[in-house]
């Protein structure tokens, strides 16, 4: 059974997203809403990891032996300025998409396994992941015209 591969993927992606949110939030501390919301969302990701822990304990985690083409890599640096903010929000959005898609596949497996506990965990987490993506999109859309047209 390969579900443990995906459980490992989603748990590590949540962890990567949490630390990336904190890094970007700190890096754009002069945008106070970005700073505070990034940290709130990072708290959510860490709570998701906690929710996943008993499931992972049950199924185990299994490394993927496939070659990595695309994986959730931690954002290790922040950019600066209005354009940099757009780019960083976009990178975060990519990470949330990765998490969201991974949950979608885990949810499919959970349904087929009739694993109600896992279905509940996914339901709890994926709604927040989707809102995280919505917020990143909302914030970046608002910032884009000024950053791309008027800012120096």
């Amino acid at each position, binding site marked *: 059974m390969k579900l443990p591969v995906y459980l490992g993927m989603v748990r590590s992606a949540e962890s990567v997203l949490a630390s990336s949110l904190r890094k970007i939030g700190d890096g754009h501390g002069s*945008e106070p*809403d970005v700073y505070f919301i990034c940290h709130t969302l990072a708290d959510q990701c860490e709570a998701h990891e906690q929710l996943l822990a008993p499931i992972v304990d049950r199924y185990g985690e299994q490394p993927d032996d496939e070659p990595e083409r695309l994986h959730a890599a931690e954002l290790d640096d922040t950019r600066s300025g209005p354009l940099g903010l757009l780019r960083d929000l976009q990178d975060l959005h990519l990470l949330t998409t990765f998490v969201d898609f991974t949950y979608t596949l885990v949810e499919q497996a959970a349904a087929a396994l009739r694993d109600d506990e896992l279905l509940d965990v996914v339901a709890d987490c994926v709604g927040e992941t989707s809102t995280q993506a919505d*917020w990143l999109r909302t914030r970046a859309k*608002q910032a884009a*015209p000024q950053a791309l047209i*008027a800012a120096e």
Partner: protein
Amino acid sequence: MVDRIADIWGTRTPYAREEQWPSRVDQKLSAELTDSDVDEWVQSACVLCSNGCACDIAVKDGEMVGVRGRETDAVNRGRLGPKGLFASWQGMRNRARLTQPLIRENGELVPTDWETAMSRIVGRSTELLDEVGPLSHGFYTSGQLFLEEYYALGVIGKAGLGTPHMDGNTRLCTATAAAAMKESFGSDGQPGCYEDIDCCDAVFLYGHNMAETQTVLWARVLDRLTGADRPALVCIDPRRTEVADHADVHLAVRPGTNLALMNALVRELFVNDWIDRDYIEEHTLGVEELRRAVDEWTPERAAEVCAVAAEDIRRAAQIFGTSQRVLSTVLQGFYQASQATAASCQVNNLHLLRGKLGTPGNGVLQMNGQPTAQNTRETGADGDLPGFRNWENPDHIAELAKLWDVDTDTIPHWAPPTHAMQIFRYAEQGSIKLLWVSATNPAVSMPEAERIRRILAESGLFLVVQDLYLTETARFADVVLPAAGWGEKQGTFTNVDRTVHLADKAVDPPGEARSDFEIFLDYATRMGLSTKSGRPLLDWETPEDAFEAWKECSRGRLCDYTGITYDRLRGGSGIPWPCNEEHPDGRRRLYEDGCFSTGFEECETFGHDLLTGATVGPLRYRSMDPAGRALLKTAEFTSAPEIPDESYPLRFTTGRTAYHFHTRTKTGRSSQLQGAAPSAWVEISEHDAQAFGIAEGDIVRVASRRGEIRVPARIGSVSDGTVFAPFHYGYWERQEAGETRPEDEPTAANELTLTEWDPVSKQPQFKNAAVRIQRIAAGSGPAPAPTTTASRPIRRTSMPPTVGGEDGQAEERFPTDTVKEDAL
């Protein structure tokens, strides 16, 4: 005669439930004058809080010499508060008024003429439009102009220049009221009205020190409290305010924890089955999600987070859950705190769960902080589109484009209009290069004052300030425009409970000052702003022309003004909107049928996630299909952005005193009000005073991570661990006296506050910062804080009470008595 400084609310006129609030006509004339000296009384309404008290201005020899409440008006039945009595006219009549335009030459502001000043603005404006486009322009207006002026500004920005960067200082005071109503009911628009006070069985005040912020409204509540069928009163406020003193339950919540308390109150309704299942089923969406969201918030859990007694939470919930008719009012204690929109939506939710909304006595008053804030919101001079239109709805944009005869593309609608805090951020980053500030004083009123001063002083920013006085903000300007104010110009405005009043012109403005309306029209003309068919965009001459144009813009919307005319506003009482063929005398309450403004084509917003502010968007909104049902929304509780720690162990919160408005631009020019609350102070609890070795009146340094203030301390009634400062005290007196850097001896509360805002309403969080306090010197007597308000000392020994003396005397007349006397 009554000393209305000592007796803020005046003589009681008790009344019982469902009786009409008795009249009491308050009047103040300049010393030595009597009624017979007055040449003329000119109809108006007061602009020194959001209550909207109707009044007549006394005119003698072309000068405003006093004021009298209008007995016939439903809002105040003749009453006026101390600010209205003493500052409305004296605040205008001062030798420091600006009388001619100023421009900056070699770093100094020098007097000039209108032609030069306007040419300079138009020159820079045109240059920037050519080089960068409309995103280079920002407009930051007020909650104190008139409807016609805001509408003019809104049309200039949205249909003329096409900039999304327009907001009002309403962002600081009332944005959450609008946001909470939009999220719950689909649109801005106050469900309740003041008559709900007359017939309710319980009143809940959430972060609303009504006794000081809307003194005449509080007089109405006091008259109910002292009459037969006294309503129960519940107060949620970290200070022991006058409201708290009268309350059956006072929940002195720890700042930053409102949502936790609200979650517990909502949970109690569910747990005790104090809910109306039929109403919920038929008229709301989201009850299951709400039930789940509050599930963990037992009174005990909330009690721990909020530092109140669980038993008190239960008692408050029981009053809400079992009163037949219940009224809620909400203000800055919720709006300027963390999770503002979510906490305010929970107030709406309490009413929706019980089905207690829109019927007599069952009301929500999501209050405004300023007299004309409602109009800033309606007309599109702030972060909204005119007529409560939805920027995400292409049909709404098309309506506006047709109305204004401009291309739909001209109207910015790719994102919500930019909120004030973001406008200042863009100015800080240099991408907004022209900022036009009208009738507001951000140098004192915005959070993190040092940062705001730095932004206003940016050399790359072309700053236009139009105001009555050379405010702290105006001193940074490149061009200062002298504005005519209240009593010197004509216009309408709308108060908290949607009542529209006309304010007529009583006297000429001083010197060359011009109304904001004339200034905006002049700019539009000089810029050649025009419609598609080549007509002037603002094809108006008088405020009444603009009012008629606005009526068309409001037609068919919730804020429908089409049944109102200037003539109809003269004489009797103000008229509430919507006023149209269906409601010829205006509609007193909204949503009495449980049908809300949430229909897809009607709604002002598709809503947001209340935790983050993420937009819901048209697709998901359509699939939810609220179709007239209210939305039960909340968010998960999170702790405030800055909480006390070892370095900054106390919580800081700010607010008003009864005697002043905003940055005292007007109230500071009234000897009565200025005498009552002459200079800045902070309030601390007795416990904290002992812990930090501070005695009454000692000079203390209160510091946050942003800055510090040095002011006398009042040992007062705030909760332990909390420091309160009034936000009125900037630096203009010392600047007028010639000091060049008065902020080196800081007194403004906003030196300490932090830059952060609610994710949905974008209202800054003035009510939560971490600070430390230290005694730096002995004082010369008690702190200069009034003894008549929430700032009263905890020990009332040997302190002179706040009185107004001869100057503070105002007349009170009781019309029924007058009749009797006449009969004799």
